[in-house]
């Protein structure tokens, strides 16, 4: 017996985002780091901080740790982004 059945999924499309323009150089720039604060991240970002300064001449690396590692960064951190020229963040365990 033929049936007409309905789609159970969300059919609305997400708004297409736009990548920020790439930088010509990182020298003298301020990079913000948004960390989930999990075990190991302190050591990882300490090394990354040093390497970004040594390799690219980055002026400042500002580290922020999310208050909840299972949620997106809060508005206090997001507000800071306008002061940075680049952001490093990620997903990991």
């Amino acid at each position, binding site marked *: *017996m*033929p*049936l*007409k*059945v*309905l*789609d*159970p*999924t*969300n*059919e*609305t499309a*997400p*708004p297409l985002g736009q990548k920020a323009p790439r930088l010509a150089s990182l020298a003298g720039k301020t990079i913000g780091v948004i960390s989930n604060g999990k*075990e190991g991240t302190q050591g990882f970002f300490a090394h990354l901080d040093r390497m970004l300064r040594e390799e690219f001449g980055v002026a400042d690396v500002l580290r922020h740790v999310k208050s*909840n590692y*299972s*949620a*997106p960064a809060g508005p206090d951190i997001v507000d800071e982004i306008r002061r940075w020229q680049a952001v490093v963040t990620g997903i990991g*365990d």
Partner: protein
Amino acid sequence: MSERGHSDMHFAARTYDVGDLLAAQELYHANGWTDGLPIVPPTEDAVHACLEWAMTPPDQLLGIEPVRAVPITAEKLAINAVMAGCLPMHFPAVLTAFTAMLQPEFLLHGATSSTGGCAVLIILNGPIRRELGATGSFNALGNSDRATAVIGRAIRLALINILEVRPGGIDRSTLGHPGKFSYCIAEDEEGTPWMPLHAQRGLPPEVSAVTVMAGGAPRQIMNEWTTQPEEILETFAAEMRANMRQYSIWSGNYALIIPPQLRDHLQAACWSKADIADFIHARARVHRREWAEVGKGAVVRDRGDTEHAALGSPDQLLVVAAGGPAGGFGAVIPPWLGDKSRAVTLPIGACVDCEPPGQ
């Protein structure tokens, strides 16, 4: 538009024509729209019946999942409820449960995507349990009755389909647990003088309600050798301490499922749910140094003397009267991860003037 049509409701969902029931199964399985088990093909008639019963228009917005900006409409939830096997009378509980999950304090994205692999525990209270035949008796945490089976399953299918919470996709669960198929229980309110859970959490006892909690798998305890409340509850507390040591030390909502045999002793000694919560709050505690006894010495560091409590406050404990009449068993259901997700209780009812939760 179906042949009969529903002039009072317009559905936004795309439709598919399939030859028969088996063809419908293969379509839905092939598209990743199931939990692996057969589904009830969601026809317009069946979806219409659910929405009509709940007096909810198809485009009613329950809320928007904020991390992915995904709208949750009554129509899409009803489609998944029909697929799960819900009849119209089951749909109001499904609506209420998902609305509760969309409250910010539940942290829906974190709870459902985490490697921690929790499921959504759904607890039914109030008169609706009797209307639905939700028993809260034998096999309460397993397959106890149709209503709890399909209400729990509807939530999982909605997560899979509306929010793409699929294993290896957004669902990063390392292990998960069987509650991810369906994890719904009814409280046995008639079998206890205790205040029902929803009343404890602030609702009038005469309304029907749903509580949702991001929960791990049940941890079963047994103590049939005493009638002393302190000794019975010490066994529950010990299981919570073991969870803190072996799984996660952080305080949050724990659910205790207490069947009649153990409940009788507590009730005979006139212990209320509040008395139980006070006792558990005091006894379910560990010191960080205990991690060293279970292979986690590497992270004790210099904080070994720090004491951790399973509950931040007694009211974080959800005590639920449920289970079959014989057997000195109980269950501890631990939180996904401390208080990152908080249990939410909402009344079931037709909501004429509801706003979706504030974003």
